[in-house]
Protein backbone atom coordinates (compact mmCIF):
# COMPACT_ATOMS: atom_id res chain seq x y z
CA UNK A 1 0.00 0.00 0.00
CA UNK A 2 1.41 3.37 -1.02
CA UNK A 3 1.13 6.24 1.41
CA UNK A 4 1.31 9.96 0.73
CA UNK A 5 3.70 12.32 2.45
CA UNK A 6 1.90 15.18 4.21
CA UNK A 7 4.30 17.97 3.19
CA UNK A 8 3.77 18.67 -0.54
CA UNK A 9 7.23 20.22 -0.99
CA UNK A 10 8.87 17.21 0.67
CA UNK A 11 6.72 14.89 -1.49
CA UNK A 12 7.94 16.75 -4.57
CA UNK A 13 11.60 16.47 -3.65
CA UNK A 14 11.17 12.77 -2.78
CA UNK A 15 9.34 12.12 -6.06
CA UNK A 16 12.09 13.92 -8.00
CA UNK A 17 14.56 11.56 -6.29
CA UNK A 18 12.57 8.61 -7.71
CA UNK A 19 10.42 7.75 -4.69
CA UNK A 20 7.40 5.91 -6.15
CA UNK A 21 5.44 6.24 -2.90
CA UNK A 22 5.92 10.01 -2.84
CA UNK A 23 4.85 10.29 -6.47
CA UNK A 24 1.75 8.16 -5.79
CA UNK A 25 0.92 10.60 -2.97
CA UNK A 26 1.15 13.55 -5.37
CA UNK A 27 -1.07 11.72 -7.85
CA UNK A 28 -3.61 10.88 -5.13
CA UNK A 29 -3.72 14.48 -4.00
CA UNK A 30 -4.45 15.88 -7.46
CA UNK A 31 -6.18 12.99 -9.24
CA UNK A 32 -9.73 14.24 -8.61
CA UNK A 33 -8.90 17.64 -10.12
CA UNK A 34 -7.21 16.26 -13.25
CA UNK A 35 -9.66 13.38 -13.76
CA UNK A 36 -12.71 15.63 -13.27
CA UNK A 37 -11.50 18.14 -15.85
CA UNK A 38 -11.30 15.21 -18.27
CA UNK A 39 -14.59 13.65 -17.16
CA UNK A 40 -16.62 16.85 -17.49
CA UNK A 41 -14.96 17.71 -20.77
CA UNK A 42 -14.92 14.29 -22.46
CA UNK A 43 -17.87 12.57 -20.67
CA UNK A 44 -16.09 9.24 -21.05
CA UNK A 45 -14.65 7.49 -18.00
CA UNK A 46 -11.95 5.56 -19.89
CA UNK A 47 -10.84 8.59 -21.90
CA UNK A 48 -10.78 10.83 -18.83
CA UNK A 49 -8.74 8.26 -16.90
CA UNK A 50 -6.31 7.83 -19.77
CA UNK A 51 -5.93 11.60 -20.13
CA UNK A 52 -5.27 11.91 -16.36
CA UNK A 53 -2.79 9.02 -16.56
CA UNK A 54 -0.91 10.74 -19.41
CA UNK A 55 -0.88 14.08 -17.56
CA UNK A 56 0.71 12.45 -14.48
CA UNK A 57 3.21 10.49 -16.57
CA UNK A 58 4.14 13.77 -18.27
CA UNK A 59 4.47 15.32 -14.82
CA UNK A 60 6.83 12.56 -13.72
CA UNK A 61 9.12 13.33 -16.64
CA UNK A 62 9.00 17.06 -15.78
CA UNK A 63 9.12 16.89 -11.97
CA UNK A 64 12.42 18.75 -11.96
CA UNK A 65 10.78 21.87 -13.43
CA UNK A 66 8.10 22.11 -10.70
CA UNK A 67 9.00 24.84 -8.23
CA UNK A 68 6.24 24.67 -5.60
CA UNK A 69 2.96 23.04 -4.63
CA UNK A 70 1.07 25.97 -6.18
CA UNK A 71 3.08 25.70 -9.37
CA UNK A 72 2.29 21.98 -9.44
CA UNK A 73 -1.48 22.60 -9.28
CA UNK A 74 -1.26 25.26 -11.99
CA UNK A 75 0.94 23.01 -14.16
CA UNK A 76 -1.45 20.05 -13.85
CA UNK A 77 -4.50 22.19 -14.64
CA UNK A 78 -2.80 23.68 -17.67
CA UNK A 79 -1.61 20.37 -19.11
CA UNK A 80 -4.98 18.67 -18.47
CA UNK A 81 -6.87 21.59 -20.02
CA UNK A 82 -4.77 21.65 -23.19
CA UNK A 83 -4.83 17.87 -23.58
CA UNK A 84 -8.62 17.87 -23.42
CA UNK A 85 -8.93 20.64 -26.00
CA UNK A 86 -6.42 18.90 -28.30
CA UNK A 87 -8.41 15.69 -27.99
CA UNK A 88 -11.62 17.54 -28.88
CA UNK A 89 -9.94 18.98 -31.98
CA UNK A 90 -9.07 15.48 -33.09
CA UNK A 91 -12.69 14.33 -32.63
CA UNK A 92 -14.23 16.64 -35.18
CA UNK A 93 -17.31 14.50 -35.78
CA UNK A 94 -19.00 15.81 -32.64
CA UNK A 95 -21.42 18.68 -33.29
CA UNK A 96 -21.11 21.59 -30.90
CA UNK A 97 -23.85 23.99 -29.95
CA UNK A 98 -23.61 27.28 -31.82
CA UNK A 99 -22.70 30.12 -29.47
CA UNK A 100 -22.64 32.82 -32.16
CA UNK A 101 -26.42 33.27 -32.10
CA UNK A 102 -26.79 33.26 -28.34
CA UNK A 103 -27.36 36.54 -26.53
CA UNK A 104 -25.76 37.20 -23.20
CA UNK A 105 -28.02 36.48 -20.20
CA UNK A 106 -29.95 39.44 -18.83
CA UNK A 107 -32.09 38.08 -16.00
CA UNK A 108 -31.64 35.71 -13.09
CA UNK A 109 -33.92 32.78 -12.44
CA UNK A 110 -34.69 31.06 -9.19
CA UNK A 111 -35.62 27.47 -8.41
CA UNK A 112 -32.66 25.26 -7.55
CA UNK A 113 -33.11 21.61 -8.38
CA UNK A 114 -30.31 19.17 -7.53
CA UNK A 115 -31.87 16.63 -9.89
CA UNK A 116 -30.86 18.85 -12.79
CA UNK A 117 -27.15 18.39 -12.07
CA UNK A 118 -26.84 15.43 -14.43
CA UNK A 119 -28.72 17.23 -17.18
CA UNK A 120 -26.53 20.32 -16.74
CA UNK A 121 -23.33 18.23 -16.89
CA UNK A 122 -24.52 16.70 -20.16
CA UNK A 123 -25.39 20.12 -21.57
CA UNK A 124 -21.95 21.45 -20.59
CA UNK A 125 -20.41 18.52 -22.49
CA UNK A 126 -22.29 19.70 -25.61
CA UNK A 127 -20.65 23.14 -25.63
CA UNK A 128 -17.81 23.91 -28.08
CA UNK A 129 -14.39 22.96 -26.65
CA UNK A 130 -13.13 26.33 -25.36
CA UNK A 131 -16.38 27.60 -23.77
CA UNK A 132 -16.85 24.11 -22.29
CA UNK A 133 -13.42 24.29 -20.70
CA UNK A 134 -14.15 27.83 -19.47
CA UNK A 135 -17.30 26.58 -17.70
CA UNK A 136 -15.43 23.61 -16.19
CA UNK A 137 -12.58 25.79 -14.91
CA UNK A 138 -15.03 28.39 -13.59
CA UNK A 139 -17.46 26.04 -11.82
CA UNK A 140 -15.43 22.90 -11.09
CA UNK A 141 -12.15 24.61 -10.22
CA UNK A 142 -13.73 27.88 -9.05
CA UNK A 143 -11.18 29.93 -11.02
CA UNK A 144 -11.55 33.62 -11.78
CA UNK A 145 -11.87 34.65 -15.45
CA UNK A 146 -8.32 36.08 -15.36
CA UNK A 147 -6.93 32.72 -14.22
CA UNK A 148 -8.92 30.95 -16.94
CA UNK A 149 -7.55 33.38 -19.54
CA UNK A 150 -4.04 32.61 -18.33
CA UNK A 151 -4.59 28.83 -18.49
CA UNK A 152 -6.22 28.89 -21.92
CA UNK A 153 -3.81 31.55 -23.20
CA UNK A 154 -6.60 33.77 -24.54
CA UNK A 155 -7.63 37.39 -23.75
CA UNK A 156 -9.66 38.06 -20.60
CA UNK A 157 -12.47 39.64 -22.63
CA UNK A 158 -12.82 36.45 -24.66
CA UNK A 159 -13.19 34.43 -21.47
CA UNK A 160 -15.81 36.81 -20.03
CA UNK A 161 -17.95 36.88 -23.17
CA UNK A 162 -17.45 33.16 -23.72
CA UNK A 163 -18.64 32.38 -20.22
CA UNK A 164 -21.67 34.67 -20.53
CA UNK A 165 -22.70 33.15 -23.85
CA UNK A 166 -22.12 29.62 -22.60
CA UNK A 167 -24.28 30.27 -19.54
CA UNK A 168 -27.04 31.76 -21.69
CA UNK A 169 -27.00 28.75 -23.96
CA UNK A 170 -27.00 26.33 -21.04
CA UNK A 171 -29.92 28.16 -19.44
CA UNK A 172 -32.02 28.16 -22.59
CA UNK A 173 -31.26 24.51 -23.31
CA UNK A 174 -32.04 23.52 -19.75
CA UNK A 175 -35.36 25.36 -19.93
CA UNK A 176 -36.23 23.51 -23.14
CA UNK A 177 -35.24 20.17 -21.66
CA UNK A 178 -37.19 20.68 -18.45
CA UNK A 179 -40.32 21.83 -20.33
CA UNK A 180 -40.30 18.67 -22.53
Amino acid at each position, binding site marked *: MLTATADPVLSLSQAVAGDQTAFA*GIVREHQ*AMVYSIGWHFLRD*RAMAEEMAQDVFLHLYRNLGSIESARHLTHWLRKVATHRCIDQARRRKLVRWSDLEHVREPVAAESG*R*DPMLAGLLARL*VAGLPPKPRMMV*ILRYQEDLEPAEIADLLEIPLGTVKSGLHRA*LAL*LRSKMEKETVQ
Partner: protein
Amino acid sequence: MNEFEDQLREAMHRREPGPGFAGRVAAMATGARKPVRRSNPVWRWAMAAAAACLMMVTGVQEYRRHQGEQARRQLLLALQITSEKLSLVDRQLEKVEGIVQGIMVDERTKQ
Protein backbone atom coordinates in the same frame (compact mmCIF):
# COMPACT_ATOMS: atom_id res chain seq x y z
CA MET B 1 -27.99 34.09 -12.03
CA ASN B 2 -26.57 32.89 -8.68
CA GLU B 3 -29.05 30.03 -8.40
CA PHE B 4 -28.12 28.80 -11.83
CA GLU B 5 -24.41 29.13 -11.09
CA ASP B 6 -24.91 27.15 -7.87
CA GLN B 7 -26.56 24.40 -9.90
CA LEU B 8 -23.60 24.47 -12.28
CA ARG B 9 -21.15 24.17 -9.37
CA GLU B 10 -23.16 21.22 -8.12
CA ALA B 11 -23.13 19.60 -11.56
CA MET B 12 -19.39 20.23 -11.98
CA HIS B 13 -18.30 18.70 -8.68
CA ARG B 14 -15.03 16.79 -8.67
CA ARG B 15 -15.05 13.04 -9.10
CA GLU B 16 -12.45 10.39 -8.29
CA PRO B 17 -10.96 8.04 -10.92
CA GLY B 18 -11.18 4.27 -10.46
CA PRO B 19 -9.72 2.61 -7.35
CA GLY B 20 -5.95 2.17 -7.33
CA PHE B 21 -5.41 4.89 -9.94
CA ALA B 22 -2.53 6.62 -8.09
CA GLY B 23 -0.68 3.35 -7.47
CA ARG B 24 -1.06 2.26 -11.10
CA VAL B 25 0.15 5.61 -12.44
CA ALA B 26 3.13 5.67 -10.04
CA ALA B 27 4.05 2.15 -11.15
CA MET B 28 3.79 3.20 -14.81
CA ALA B 29 5.91 6.31 -14.16
CA THR B 30 8.73 4.30 -12.62
CA GLY B 31 8.57 1.72 -15.40
CA ALA B 32 7.22 -1.07 -13.20
CA ARG B 33 4.09 -1.22 -15.32
CA LYS B 34 3.21 -0.45 -18.96
CA PRO B 35 0.85 2.48 -19.64
CA VAL B 36 -2.72 1.40 -20.35
CA ARG B 37 -4.31 2.46 -23.65
CA ARG B 38 -8.00 1.70 -23.72
CA SER B 39 -9.85 4.80 -24.72
CA ASN B 40 -8.65 5.48 -28.30
CA PRO B 41 -11.80 5.32 -30.47
CA VAL B 42 -9.74 4.10 -33.45
CA TRP B 43 -8.43 1.27 -31.31
CA ARG B 44 -11.98 0.48 -30.14
CA TRP B 45 -13.27 0.39 -33.71
CA ALA B 46 -10.31 -1.70 -34.84
CA MET B 47 -10.97 -4.19 -32.05
CA ALA B 48 -14.67 -4.33 -32.92
CA ALA B 49 -13.85 -4.78 -36.63
CA ALA B 50 -11.30 -7.50 -35.82
CA ALA B 51 -13.84 -9.29 -33.62
CA ALA B 52 -16.48 -9.05 -36.37
CA CYS B 53 -14.01 -10.39 -38.98
CA LEU B 54 -13.01 -13.24 -36.69
CA MET B 55 -16.66 -14.12 -36.09
CA MET B 56 -17.38 -13.98 -39.83
CA VAL B 57 -14.38 -16.18 -40.76
CA THR B 58 -15.26 -18.68 -38.02
CA GLY B 59 -18.88 -18.65 -39.18
CA VAL B 60 -17.94 -19.26 -42.81
CA GLN B 61 -15.55 -22.06 -41.80
CA GLU B 62 -18.22 -23.64 -39.62
CA TYR B 63 -20.77 -23.32 -42.42
CA ARG B 64 -18.36 -24.92 -44.90
CA ARG B 65 -17.53 -27.68 -42.44
CA HIS B 66 -21.24 -28.27 -41.90
CA GLN B 67 -21.87 -28.25 -45.65
CA GLY B 68 -18.96 -30.70 -46.18
CA GLU B 69 -20.24 -32.95 -43.42
CA GLN B 70 -23.73 -32.88 -44.91
CA ALA B 71 -22.37 -33.68 -48.41
CA ARG B 72 -20.29 -36.54 -46.99
CA ARG B 73 -23.37 -37.95 -45.23
CA GLN B 74 -25.44 -37.65 -48.41
CA LEU B 75 -22.72 -39.40 -50.45
CA LEU B 76 -22.52 -42.25 -47.93
CA LEU B 77 -26.32 -42.60 -48.00
CA ALA B 78 -26.30 -42.64 -51.81
CA LEU B 79 -23.55 -45.29 -51.83
CA GLN B 80 -25.47 -47.33 -49.27
CA ILE B 81 -28.66 -47.12 -51.35
CA THR B 82 -26.74 -48.02 -54.52
CA SER B 83 -25.11 -50.94 -52.72
CA GLU B 84 -28.51 -52.20 -51.52
CA LYS B 85 -29.97 -51.89 -55.03
CA LEU B 86 -27.00 -53.72 -56.51
CA SER B 87 -27.40 -56.49 -53.93
CA LEU B 88 -31.10 -56.77 -54.85
CA VAL B 89 -30.27 -56.92 -58.55
CA ASP B 90 -27.60 -59.51 -57.78
CA ARG B 91 -30.11 -61.61 -55.87
CA GLN B 92 -32.64 -61.30 -58.69
CA LEU B 93 -29.98 -62.34 -61.21
CA GLU B 94 -29.09 -65.34 -59.07
CA LYS B 95 -32.75 -66.33 -59.02
CA VAL B 96 -33.06 -65.94 -62.81
CA GLU B 97 -29.83 -67.90 -63.30
CA GLY B 98 -31.22 -70.70 -61.08
CA ILE B 99 -34.42 -70.82 -63.08
CA VAL B 100 -32.56 -70.85 -66.42
CA GLN B 101 -30.25 -73.63 -65.22
CA GLY B 102 -33.32 -75.63 -64.02
CA ILE B 103 -34.96 -75.26 -67.44
CA MET B 104 -31.75 -76.36 -69.18
CA VAL B 105 -31.48 -79.44 -66.93
CA ASP B 106 -35.11 -80.33 -67.64
CA GLU B 107 -34.60 -80.09 -71.39
CA ARG B 108 -31.48 -82.26 -71.23
CA THR B 109 -33.33 -84.94 -69.27
CA LYS B 110 -36.21 -84.89 -71.83
CA GLN B 111 -33.75 -85.45 -74.66
